[in-house]
């Protein structure tokens, strides 16, 4: 078989996979929400509500597709398209698995292998805000515009911390290619063991970049009706909502690739040995790795939902304070500490930063006078 066709199939599979996962995320989101609120969630359409995404899509398609008279028509249409396009593009550089051996050729299970993979992800993610911006602007509605402005400033603020927290990982790997980063975490030596602080910062920023609760201010219903998609209806709205889920899956993939070893899992060498070194054995080992990766990514998708149904939304000034005053200084601290560690060849050195922070916090909490510590105290009963 021609390598071109194999690549095409792999790209199509990845494309389909992200769409499929995103589709069932909409179902899982409601299921998770229900379970966390002590109710069963959707269970009418199909077994356990499994046909719910199809029913929703059907509903979306049959709704009136309304374009406001004062809206800029072409930009109004371009908004959701851009959102969807950018959401899907970024999955191209994620290494979903090791290599497949077909006809003596090694083929990587990845859309495209570029040596600036992380930059690619960053570029696409920052393009992603255009979907929201264009849609919010073209709606010619003040609420939409406010939502769009919020989205833009939020994404810009958090992109800084996101990039800075990643620099520590890149310093440890010495490469911008996602595949290289994954390969250096071979076996159980995942980056999370060496970059705990970076991971927390990265995850927080990923939430903000995906516009997920607690950072979903661009679509804050309480203040902005629907935020940037106030004027949208029918499948255009569907695209916006769907793009959010695709983004969620892609960022889960990125998190698990950068910090949780991607397709690596403990004792993978032993498994590979047991399966043998011929083409079939190698391909099976790759498949196991692929499923390990998907499992990690799905865990993070669950984590996204778990956080969403736990935390209330931040206030906008809190959001900005958190981004500029906490996350960026912390990520710079993380870079410095990691750098010092690398100088002395101590890979676990950034735990020092964590230990320092925990110590400071503990000391400060202990120093606070006891009487004032409880938040709610019953008045003495006379």
């Amino acid at each position, binding site marked *: 078989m021609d390598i071109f066709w194999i690549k095409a199939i792999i790209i199509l599979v990845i494309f389909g996979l992200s769409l499929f996962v995103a589709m069932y995320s909409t179902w899982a989101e409601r299921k998770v929400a229900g379970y966390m609120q002590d109710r069963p969630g959707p269970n009418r359409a199909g077994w356990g509500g499994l046909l719910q995404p199809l029913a929703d899509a059907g509903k979306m398609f049959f709704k009136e597709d309304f374009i406001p008279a004062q809206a800029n028509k072409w930009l109004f249409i371009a908004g959701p398209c851009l959102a969807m396009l950018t959401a899907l593009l970024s999955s191209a550089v994620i290494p979903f698995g090791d290599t497949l051996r077909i006809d003596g050729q090694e083929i990587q299970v990845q859309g495209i292998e570029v040596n600036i993979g992380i930059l690619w992800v960053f570029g696409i993610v920052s393009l992603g805000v255009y979907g929201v911006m264009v849609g919010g602007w073209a709606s010619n509605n003040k609420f939409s515009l406010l939502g769009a402005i919020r989205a833009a400033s939020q994404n810009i603020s958090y992109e800084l911390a996101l990039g800075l927290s990643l620099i520590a990982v890149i310093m440890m790997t010495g490469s911008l290619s996602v595949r290289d980063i994954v390969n250096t975490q071979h076996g159980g030596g995942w980056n999370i063991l060496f970059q705990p602080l970076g991971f927390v910062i990265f995850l927080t920023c990923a939430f903000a970049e995906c516009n997920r609760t607690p950072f979903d201010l661009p679509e804050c219903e309480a203040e902005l009706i629907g935020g940037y998609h106030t004027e949208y209806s029918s499948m255009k709205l569907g695209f916006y909502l769907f793009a959010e889920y695709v983004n969620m899956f892609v960022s889960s993939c990125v998190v698990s690739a950068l910090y949780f070893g991607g397709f690596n899992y403990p004792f993978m060498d032993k498994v590979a040995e047991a399966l043998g070194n011929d083409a079939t054995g190698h391909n099976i080992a790759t498949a196991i790795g692929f499923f390990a990766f998907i499992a990690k990514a799905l865990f993070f998708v669950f984590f996204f939902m778990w956080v969403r*149904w736990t935390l209330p939304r931040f206030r906008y000034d809190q959001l900005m304070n958190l981004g500029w005053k906490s996350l960026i200084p912390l990520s710079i601290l993380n870079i410095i500490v990691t750098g010092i560690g690398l100088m002395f060849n101590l890979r676990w050195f950034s735990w020092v930063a964590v230990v320092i922070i925990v110590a400071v916090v503990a000391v400060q909490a202990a120093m606070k006078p006891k009487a004032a510590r409880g*938040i709610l105290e019953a008045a003495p009963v006379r």
Partner: protein
Amino acid sequence: MQLTNRAKKIDKSEMTLAERMYLPAIAGGMAITLKHFFKKKPTINYPEQKRYLGPVFRGQHILKKDEAGRERCTACGLCAVACPAEAISMVAAERKAGEENLYREEKYAAVYEINMLRCIFCGFCEEACPKQAIYLRHDQFVPVFMSRDEVIYGKDRLVEDMSSRYLREGWK
């Protein structure tokens, strides 16, 4: 001035770093939601699962028959008089010779209709009936209507089926 002793004193002093970091509180909150995630759900999936509503629930009406399978109703109209919603209407007829195994009294209701849109399920008809002919079942709802012609329940849907007799708790 303190008006009640239920007032809560609120700590408005500066938050500690741990509180300002949110992370400990977030972890605590996520532990709570995860606990709920694995909890047994109290939901009753209604059409498939039904809950026992007690022996005095007033559900769908039933026109009882006696042990011999004869209709008890004698079309006296007391239920219709008692009904505050004027939901009951009937047409009386005289029992012919040879119909003794069908109707217990000499007069019977040839037509007996309850308009379920009017009925408020007060149970006054059951209380008014001197012949113990009408009851409101405790084990069956009046189902949802899909069209107007389903609303009026005639004898076909009200008279008791001898193969599955209605027994209320405490009856023999």
